[in-house]
């Protein structure tokens, strides 16, 4: 569970660089590639990279969860949606330079803000730290402090499922 094995030495550093590279490559493919199927695959790649980062951050559990839920469920759902709407065959109009420029400008602006925040803030670790990485603690928290959240998210998922069914239900009268 502990990321300690990975935290020193040349090999781990190399591994880290690879993971970061995968993440960014995936993100770039997800955002900039013009084929929508590649976008989803890029997303899956980026998510795998992030899962690797989670492992570096000390939580194998969350990394696995990321793979299961995100890559295994969400990306597959998107692929289904693509299959249902067949956008791959639709004509692709040319990109507008102005739109690209404005959105990249906004992205850089937010990036600038974030970099500013990262470097200007004096990040201080908490005075007392409990370094407890066991899954059991997470489970404990889920059933004590976050029990309400735990219950409510089931409601959220129920609502989402019901809603998805109702909205996408084919209704003969429309169109």
């Amino acid at each position, binding site marked *: 569970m502990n990321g300690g094995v990975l935290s020193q030495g040349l090999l781990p550093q190399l591994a880290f660089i690879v993971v970061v590279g995968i993440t960014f490559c995936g993100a770039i493919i997800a955002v900039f590639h013009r084929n929508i199927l590649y976008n989803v695959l890029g997303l899956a790649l980026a998510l795998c990279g992030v899962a690797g980062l989670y492992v570096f951050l000390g939580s194998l559990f969350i990394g696995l969860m990321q793979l299961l839920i995100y890559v295994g469920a969400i990306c597959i759902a998107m692929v289904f949606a693509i299959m249902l709407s067949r956008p791959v065959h639709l004509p692709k109009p040319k990109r507008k330079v102005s739109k690209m420029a404005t959105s990249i400008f906004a992205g850089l602006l937010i990036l600038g803000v974030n970099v500013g925040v990262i470097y200007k803030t*004096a*990040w201080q670790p908490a005075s007392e730290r409990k370094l407890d990485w066991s899954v059991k603690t997470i489970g404990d928290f889920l059933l004590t402090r976050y*029990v309400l959240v735990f219950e*409510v998210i089931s*409601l959220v998922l129920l*609502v989402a499922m019901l*809603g998805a069914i109702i*909205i996408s239900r084919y209704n003969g*009268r*429309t169109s």
Partner: protein
Amino acid sequence: MKTLLFLPEIYYTVMALILFLLSVQKVANRRRTFLVAFGLASLGVFVTLFAVKMHGYLFYNAYKVDLFSQVFKFMLALGLFFVVAVCDNLGDISEREHAEFYLFLVTCTIGMMMLVSAVELLTFYIALELSSYSLYILVPLRRGVGFDKEAGVKYILIGATASAFLLFGMSLLFGVAHTTYLPELFKLFPSLITQPAGAVGLMLVLAGLFFKQAVFPFHFWAPDVYQGASNQVTTYIATASKVAAIAIVIRFVGLASQNNELLVKVLMVLSVASMTFGNLVAIIQKDIKRLLAYSSIAHAGYVLIGILTMDTTGFASAMFYALAYLIMNFSCFMVIVKVSPDGRNVWVKDLAGLHKRSPLLAMTLMLGLFGLAGIPPTVGFTGKFLVFLAAMQKGYLALVIIGMINATISLYYYLIIIKAAYLLEPDTDEIPPLKVGFGLKMLNYGLIAAIVLLGIAPSQLFDIAKAAASVLY
């Protein structure tokens, strides 16, 4: 009994369960569904009223029940009751989806009730998403118009972006404060706000909340969604959801109540921009729901004036304004719903001859609009007055003046609607009188009385609001 503290939420969850059971029945019966929903919603008002005086912590301090939250829960229950009361003719939602329609209204209400009580970031976030998702689903539920899906898409896109910002802001707050409990954050905040991560984090969180409240520049969804969603859903978004938004904005701005000048300045700019933008654009609208969407943006600006004073009086005035807004806006929307029995969108000119078709509805509409315009002695005037007074006590004179000028501008388009209802003659000769049933009549009388009486005698309510605002942390 600690469980009793959770009574309103439990009640509405049970209500959701009952509606869920109704939704899986083979044969949909719109009348029965309506009656069940209506009965439960009206009972819910009393349940929340019963729970008003409760206070205490739940779920390991993640959930705080106090006067502030309970008053807002009461308002939310009232909002839900109002909306369900005008759902007897859901013209543009297919019959077999009625139960789900009510179900999503109720889950949204549950989400917002948890929202006003949550004092832990994750609880808060999940509650926020519960209410948002219910609304995302409700908007494209409409049938028969071409643009409901488009409105739904725009809503969820802007909403998801805003909530990503909110989440990012929360992560910054967590990183800089090491805690996720709002009361602890409140204690730490004077030092936190000097850190860029604290200030930017709060601003990003506020951005997500301003999205719910439709403050400029996070308002872009409002006109499209108001226009695209069915009349009843718009009513809900414009009343109950706005009330919850005001509550949570008060909660988060209250974090920084130790006079952070820059934050006040930013809020001032947003408030002025909201008022001016909303009022100016509202003038050229033809679709009433769209017009009221812009007016709601303007009203978000007025409420912000009260909130940015960052003291108990200001928060109390904003709370008062929230209730006033709930009542006045509902009055207008109720008339819109009733004028269009088949659920089509109402244009300003469609109101022509309303005073002949139904004098009572026309009267309610007029009072509601006068309230929104802030003309005495309606509750709208009192609300604006209290908000401006709170700002004046802080010396924000320019802000008050801009608010006043905006109120004058807003009068122009409210008068356009009133003129349509009272002074215009319909194009066609036959004007079928609108049937106003007994229940609706009572509702109308109640609204009229509330608009006028609360305007004339606001002091008791304002005292409650002050008491509620003083227990914020």
